[in-house]
């Protein structure tokens, strides 16, 4: 079946987590065909080309940053951190949804995770990859990044383990590794399916190696399930810890607007918020383009909408508390920071973020909206903008007017700031476009399992 000229009419939307009438064979074939038999569509190619274009922009920007120095960005004293760290936090945050869906919902035995977890995890990995770039790129002497790693060097020195930046190194690299292995574990049986379904020998060999010779033996499956559960159990605290550690970058500092104990939960909630937004941003076009309405159903969209609403409210609460504490604490620096944030030179960005993260998403209270894909898509974009602005506001308004008024300054981004940010979008989407062509974007064996369970339930009802 070719997505480009598809003559099916009237998509049947379903309230189930999977459309009725699917068998083990149908789900297996449907997903594997997308990888093995469907031709490369024009729109896919165009999308990839666009992403590659942005990727080139990234190379250019980083090239300039590395040859001339971070001075090409708008950063200065007092605003030592600008877009780079904003992007870092934003991307890391986006990553969180993937792990949460695959790990947390697995522990919760949620069936609706099944058809979205695979590409959500992929999203996580690519997002973390993008994020990981920034701490490196924003260094004044990036060629010395390895001094942040603990190894016996010729100087007898070590990283400074009290620094949140070193914690970041450990947290992010751990997060990336665990996400990767978790993702790969999930892929093993599906790679076997691809191996067995592939026509050409070359493809068989590739997937054959990748699947390590998985053969679905009963004992393997039982170990496999134990491993998956353990990984899920480990990833859940990990994902919480990662954004907590990221929030330490700010809370450990003494800067008004940074030095706050509310940040860890607030950052984690924000991360999930933006993460689910990104999942929707990816899922909605995907299901339309690849006609996955049978698997990514209204129920999925509805649930994800609810999750966004919930986390959005946590974030809203955090904003309110932050403002309240600033005044209630009686700390004049905090109070000035908050006033300046609301009325100062960066007030516009602040109020925009309030609209994007607090006001806009309230439409999700209405079921009808939660179930209209394109409106959901719109909201997801708004939320992501809002979450990016949130980090921007925290970093910039915290720094640009701190304790000593004589050192107050402003931050004006340069074209290199923008190019670096757009560039990472290119990296992200390039990886994602490639992923959906070579990997099953839905966990096939879990779909089969789901079909099995559904049949059971059907039987149970018929009795």
């Amino acid at each position, binding site marked *: 079946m070719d997505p480009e000229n598809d003559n099916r009419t009237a998509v049947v939307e379903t309230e189930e987590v999977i459309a009725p009438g699917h*068998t*083990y*064979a149908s789900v*297996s*074939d449907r997903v594997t065909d997308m990888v093995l038999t469907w031709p490369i569509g024009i729109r896919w190619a165009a999308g990839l080309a666009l992403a590659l274009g942005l990727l080139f922009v990234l190379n250019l920007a980083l090239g300039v940053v590395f040859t001339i120095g971070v001075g090409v960005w708008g950063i200065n004293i007092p605003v030592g951190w600008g877009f780079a760290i904003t992007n870092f936090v934003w991307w890391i945050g986006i990553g969180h949804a993937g792990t949460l869906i695959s790990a947390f919902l697995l522990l919760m035995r949620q069936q609706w995770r099944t058809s979205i977890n695979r590409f959500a995890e992929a999203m996580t990995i690519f997002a973390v990859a993008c994020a990981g770039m920034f701490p490196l790129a924003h260094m004044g002497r990036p060629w010395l990044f390895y001094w942040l790693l*603990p190894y016996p060097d010729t100087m*007898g*020195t*070590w990283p*400074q*383990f*009290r620094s949140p930046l*070193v*914690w970041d190194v*450990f*947290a992010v690299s*751990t997060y990336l*590794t*665990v996400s990767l*292995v*978790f993702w790969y*574990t999930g892929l093993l*049986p599906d790679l*076997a*399916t691809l*191996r*067995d*379904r592939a026509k050409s020998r070359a493809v068989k060999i590739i997937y*054959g*190696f990748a699947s*390590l*010779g*998985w*053969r*679905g*033996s*009963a*004992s*393997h*499956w*039982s*170990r*496999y*399930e*134990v*491993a998956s559960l*353990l*990984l899920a159990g*480990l*990833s859940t*605290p*990990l994902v919480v*810890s990662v954004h907590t*550690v990221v929030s*330490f970058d700010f809370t450990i500092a003494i800067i008004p607007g940074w030095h706050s104990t509310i940040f860890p939960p607030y950052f984690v909630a924000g991360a999930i918020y933006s993460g689910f937004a990104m999942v929707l941003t990816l899922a909605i076009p995907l299901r339309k383009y690849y006609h996955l309405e049978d698997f990514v159903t209204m129920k999925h969209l509805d649930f994800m909408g609810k999750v966004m609403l919930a986390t959005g409210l946590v974030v809203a609460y955090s904003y309110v508390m932050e403002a309240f504490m600033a005044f209630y604490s009686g700390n004049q620096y905090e109070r000035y920071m908050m006033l300046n944030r609301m009325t100062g030179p960066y007030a516009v960005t602040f109020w925009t973020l309030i609209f994007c993260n607090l006001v806009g998403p309230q439409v999700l209270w209405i079921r009808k909206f939660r179930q209209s894909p394109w409106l959901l898509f719109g909201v997801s974009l708004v939320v992501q903008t809002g979450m990016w602005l949130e980090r921007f506001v925290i970093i910039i308004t915290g720094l640009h007017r701190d304790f000593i008024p004589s050192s107050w300054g402003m931050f004006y981004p340069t074209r290199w700031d923008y190019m670096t940010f757009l560039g990472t979008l290119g990296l992200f989407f390039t990886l994602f476009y490639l992923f959906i062509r070579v990997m099953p974007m839905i966990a096939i*064996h*879990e779909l*089969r*399992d789901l079909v*099995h369970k559904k049949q059971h339930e059907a039987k149970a009802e018929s009795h």
Partner: protein
Amino acid sequence: MAQILYGLMAEFETPEQVLEAAERARDEGYRRMDAYTPFPVEGLAEAVGFYRTRLSAIVLCGGLTGCCTGFLLCWWPNVIGYPLNIGGKPYNSWPAFIPITFELTILFSALSAVIGMIALNGLPMPYHPVFNAPRFDLASRDRFFLCIEARDPKFSLTETRDFLGGLDPVEVSEVEC
């Protein structure tokens, strides 16, 4: 043909069938057998005689190792290796060492979980006799297989074939080594 026989492979259409078949085979006294399914079937492992895995223990050890590594990694350079006065904080400012300790705990346990699983499953094993079964590619799609291996003491080509045939499989085929 002079190929050595690995075992007899019966193909079923539903998980219930293969589960029942496995239990029956067990009652028959077969021990060396294994079932191959496109998704985990509850109880099947026990049915083919696989009870518990040591994976959890491995992960626990991995986690503890990671925990110690993490803390020592922070503690040693700061207290023994190259103590420096950082912002007036004590050399052993253990609260600052917790994040890394935690992360390494997770990292080590996660890796030991995956590597342990793969190793215990004897992977990678790109070649395996069962792949010689003609329709085995369906094992990763929608069919369920039970294979009684030739090394089982009770195995005999004819009787076992009859026994399997009695479980109304789609077909029973010989699997060469």
